[in-house]
C-alpha cells in the first residue's frame, strides 16, 4: 500500500534535487513494549519551508520527532542532514547537527529564571568560571528583542502563565540558531495573540532559509502556515503533498482513513430538572457574581479569553478553592463543597485544563489513572478494592473511548497525548457524575478523537448528565453548546442561546 503512495508522492512533490533537503528521514522504525510506534516512515524537509506533520493521536508523530532530535534511537532507518548521513545518539548530538526541538510537554525548570532556562548547559562564564549573569541576561534581552517577546529575563519561570512558558520554550529553541526546528504542538496552550506572534517568528525563520517541522491538531493553522504536509496513520507513512493540493476534508480523510461525516453530532435532548444551581458565586479578587442554572441533558459552554476566570469558577465549584461568597445547590439542595472529595460525592466531576500538572499520574499504569477517583465506590471489606469489578469497568470504558494502549497495565506516560486525555475522561465517567465539568476537553486531541469525544458528550447529555464545557475553541463552543456564558475579567458579560451563537457575538462579549 505505502509503496504505491510513495510513488504518487514523488510525482506531486515539488522536486528537490538530491542533497538539497535540509533533513531526510527514511525507513524509520521504532518499537516500544507491545507497540510498534513507527513502521517505516519518511519525512523530507526542504529549506525555507514549514512542513506540517499530521496524524491522529498515537500516529507516531512525536516519536519520529524525538528520533530526529536524538532522544530516541530508531530500530531501523536512516537520517540525513543536508545529504549527509548522521547517527544521533543524544539531544546534544542533534543540536550540534543543527536540529532543535520544542517539546509537546513543557520542560522548563520552575525555580530558576527565564534566562537560566534558555541558556541551560551553555551559560556564558566569566574569568573565574562562574556564570556571568549580566551577560546571561543581556543575551536573553537581545534574543527577546529580536523575537519581540515582552518578558523579563530575570523573572522566575514558576510565575509565568502556561502561554508565556511556551513562548520561553520557543525562544529557547530559536536561540540554538539551528537549521531545523521541530515544533510539537506549540500552540496547544497559548492564546490567539501568541499564536500570531509565533507565526511571525516562523515566517522570519523561513525567510532565513531554515526548515520547520510543525505538528498540530488545529486544521486552521496547518493551512495557514504549512508549505508541505505529511500524513502518518498508525505508525505508517501515508503521503506527502504540497499544502496547496489539499483542503481540510481531504486532509482529514487521509488522517483518519475514512470520511468524517459529522464533526459535531449535537442532538437536541429534552432538558430535565435543574441539577446545578450556582448563585452569585465569588472568589475575592478573581471573579464575582457568577450565577447560572444547569439542567440535566444540557451542555452549557463557558467562553472567554484566557484569564477571564472560567477555570477558576470551575475549580471553586469543585471545591479546590474556598469561595468568598455565594451558594451552590445540587438537585435543589444546598451543598457546602469544601474539597474535591465532597464535590465527587455530590455528583460533580472536573476534567482539569492542564493534563500533566493536575490530571495524570505519569508513572502509574492506565488502570490506576482511571480508577483512582472512583475507588470509594468499589470497596470491599477492610478497604480492599474490588479489583476485578473496577478493572472490568475500566476495560469497558477503554474500549468505548477507544483509548489506544496495549493494555490497562501500560504506564500512562507511554501513551500519546490524546490517548492520555481519553483515559482521563474515562476516570471521570467512572464516577458516574451528574454534572461533568470539562475544561478544554479536546486540547491536543486529533480530529477523529475530537469527533468521538463530541459524540460521547452528546450521548452523556442524552443520558441526562449536565455538562459544563469550558473552551477556547470557538468551533466546539458553537458546535456543541445549548447555551453559552461568556466571561471577561472575572464577570459573566452575557449569555447566548444556541440560535444566537456566532463567533462575532462571543468575541464581542468576551472582549468588552
Amino acid at each position, binding site marked *: *500500500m*505505502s*509503496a504505491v503512495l510513495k510513488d504518487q508522492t514523488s510525482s506531486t512533490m515539488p522536486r528537490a534535487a538530491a542533497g538539497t533537503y535540509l533533513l531526510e528521514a527514511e525507513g524509520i*522504525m*521504532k*518499537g*516500544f*513494549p*507491545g*507497540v*510498534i510506534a513507527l*513502521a*517505516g516512515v519518511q519525512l523530507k524537509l526542504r529549506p525555507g519551508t514549514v512542513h506540517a506533520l499530521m496524524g491522529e493521536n498515537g500516529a507516531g508523530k512525536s516519536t519520529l520527532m524525538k528520533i530526529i532530535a536524538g*532522544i530516541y534511537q530508531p*530500530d*531501523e532507518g536512516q537520517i540525513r542532514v543536508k545529504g549527509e548521513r548522521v547517527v544521533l545518539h543524544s539531544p546534544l548530538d542533534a543540536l550540534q547537527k543543527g536540529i532543535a526541538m520544542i517539546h509537546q510537554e513543557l520542560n522548563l525548570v520552575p525555580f530558576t529564571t527565564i534566562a537560566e532556562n534558555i541558556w541551560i548547559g551553555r551559560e556564558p562564564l566569566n574569568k573565574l568560571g562562574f556564570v556571568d549573569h549580566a551577560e546571561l541576561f543581556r543575551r536573553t534581552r537581545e534574543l527577546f528583542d529580536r523575537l519581540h517577546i515582552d518578558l523579563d529575563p530575570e523573572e522566575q519561570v514558576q510565575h509565568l502563565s502556561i502561554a508565556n512558558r511556551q513562548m520561553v520554550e520557543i525562544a529557547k529553541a530559536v536561540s540554538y540558531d539551528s537549521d531545523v526546528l521541530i515544533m510539537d504542538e506549540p500552540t496547544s496552550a497559548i492564546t490567539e495573540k501568541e499564536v500570531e506572534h509565533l507565526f511571525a517568528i516562523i515566517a522570519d525563520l523561513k525567510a532565513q532559509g531554515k526548515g520547520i517541522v510543525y505538528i498540530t491538531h488545529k486544521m486552521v493553522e496547518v493551512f495557514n502556515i504549512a508549505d508541505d504536509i505529511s500524513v502518518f496513520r498508525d505508525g*505508517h*507513512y501515508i503521503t506527502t503533498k504540497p499544502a496547496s493540493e489539499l483542503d481540510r476534508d481531504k486532509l482529514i480523510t487521509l488522517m483518519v482513513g475514512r470520511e468524517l461525516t459529522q464533526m459535531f453530532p449535537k442532538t437536541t435532548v429534552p432538558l430535565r430538572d435543574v441539577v446545578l444551581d450556582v448563585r452569585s458565586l465569588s472568589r475575592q479578587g478573581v471573579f464575582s457574581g457568577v450565577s447560572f442554572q444547569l439542567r440535566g441533558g444540557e451542555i452549557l459552554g463557558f467562553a472567554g479569553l484566557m484569564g477571564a476566570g472560567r477555570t477558576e469558577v470551575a475549580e471553586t465549584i*469543585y471545591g*479546590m478553592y474556598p469561595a468568598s461568597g455565594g451558594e451552590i445547590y445540587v438537585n435543589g439542595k444546598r451543598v457546602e463543597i469544601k*474539597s*474535591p*472529595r465532597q*464535590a*465527587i*460525592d455530590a455528583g460533580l466531576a*472536573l476534567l*482539569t485544563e492542564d493534563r500533566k*500538572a*493536575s*490530571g*495524570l*499520574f*505519569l*508513572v*502509574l499504569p492506565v488502570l*490506576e489513572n482511571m*480508577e*483512582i*477517583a472512583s*475507588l*470509594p465506590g468499589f*470497596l470491599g471489606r*477492610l*478497604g*480492599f*478494592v474490588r*479489583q476485578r469489578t473496577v478493572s472490568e469497568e475500566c476495560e469497558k470504558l477503554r474500549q468505548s473511548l477507544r483509548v489506544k494502549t496495549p493494555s490497562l497495565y501500560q*504506564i500512562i*506516560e*507511554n501513551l500519546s497525548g490524546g490517548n492520555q486525555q481519553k483515559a482521563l475522561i474515562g*476516570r471521570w465517567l467512572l464516577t458516574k457524575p451528574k454534572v461533568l465539568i470539562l475544561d478544554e476537553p479536546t486540547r491536543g486531541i486529533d480530529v477523529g478523537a475530537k469527533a468521538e469525544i463530541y459524540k460521547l458528550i452528546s450521548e452523556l447529555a442524552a443520558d441526562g448528565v449536565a455538562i459544563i464545557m469550558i473552551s477556547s475553541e470557538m468551533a466546539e463552543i458553537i458546535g456543541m453548546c445549548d447555551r453559552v456564558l461568556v466571561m471577561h475579567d472575572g464577570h459573566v458579560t452575557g449569555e447566548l442561546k444556541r440560535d444566537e451563537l456566532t463567533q462575532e457575538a462571543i468575541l464581542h462579549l468576551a472582549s468588552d
Partner: protein
Amino acid sequence: MSTVVTNPKALVAKARRLPPELSILFVLLGIAVIFEVLGWIFNGQSFLFNSQRLVIMILQVSVIGLLAIGVTQVIITTGIDLSSGSVLALSAMVAASLAQSADVARPVFEGLGGLPVFIPVVAGLLVGTVCGLINGSLIAATGIPPFIATLGMMVTARGLAQYYTHGKPISQLSDSYTAIGAGAMPVMIFLMMAVVFHIALRYTKYGKYTYAIGGNMTAARVSGIDVKRHLITVYTIAGALSGLAGVVASARAASGQSGMGLSYELDAIAAAVIGGVSLAGGVGRITGTVIGALILGMMTSGFTFLGIDAYIQQIVKGVIIVVAVIADTYRSKRKI
C-alpha cells in the same frame, strides 16, 4: 499494510519488560555466589551453607527490614523518614522500662512490679505511632519538607531516649518479653509485616492512594484524595513500624539502650532504594525492599565472614547505595 513492516514481531518481542524485582533478585543471588566462591578460596568453607551465619544475618535484617517497610511507603509518597532509627531507640527504652521482671533495680518507675507482656509491647508501639503522627502532622499542616520534619524527630527522639534513663541501660527483662526476640520470632514478625503491607499497597484503597500521591500530588487532590490526611496516615504507619522494631530489638537484646538503632534509618532507606523504590515517588514495592534489605544484610555478613575491616565495609556500603540511586535516576531518565 504489513508490507512495510519487516519484522514487527521482533520489535514487539524485545519489548516485554520483566518485573523490576527480578533484576534485584539476580543481584542478590550474584552476591551470594561471589561470597560462596570467595569463602571456599580464602576461608576454605561455605558461606551459604552455615545455618548459624544465615540465622544471624536474617535476624539482623529483620529489624532494619521493619524500618524499611515503613520508609518504603513514605518514599513512595515522595517523602523521607530520617527518624526511624531514633524512634526505634525511644520505643525500645519505653517498652523495656515496662518489661522488667519483678523485683529488679529499675531506672524508671521505681518499685513497679512485673507487668503483663502486652503492656510494654503496646507502649512501644504507641510511642512509635505518636512519633509518626507528629512527623505526619508537621509535614501535612505546616508544609515543611519531610526531610526537615523527620530530621527534627530524629534528633529529638534520640534525645528523649537518652534523657529517659539519663543514659542508663535497662536490663533484666521478663522472659515472656524476651520471647518476642527469641528464635525465629523477629523473622516471623518481619515477614508478616512485609506480607501485610505488600498486600495493603497493592490491593487496598490505602495503597492506591499512596502511589497516587507520589505520582502527582495535585492530581491526587483533584481525584478526591484527602492528601494531608493520607500523608499523616503513612507517616504514622511508618512510626508504628519503628515502634515495633524497637520492641523486637529490645526483646532480642534483652535490654533497652538509648544507642540502639543508630543510623539504622540510613540502612532502611538504602534497602528501599536498592530495592527499586524511586526517590521521585510513585514507584516501588515491598518485595523489592525486602530483597534490598537482604542484599545489605548479606553484604555485612559476607564481609564479616571474610574478615574484612568494618570501616571498609562501611565504604563499600556507601558505594552500593550511590550506585543504586544512580540506577534509579537512570531508570527514570530513560523514560523521557
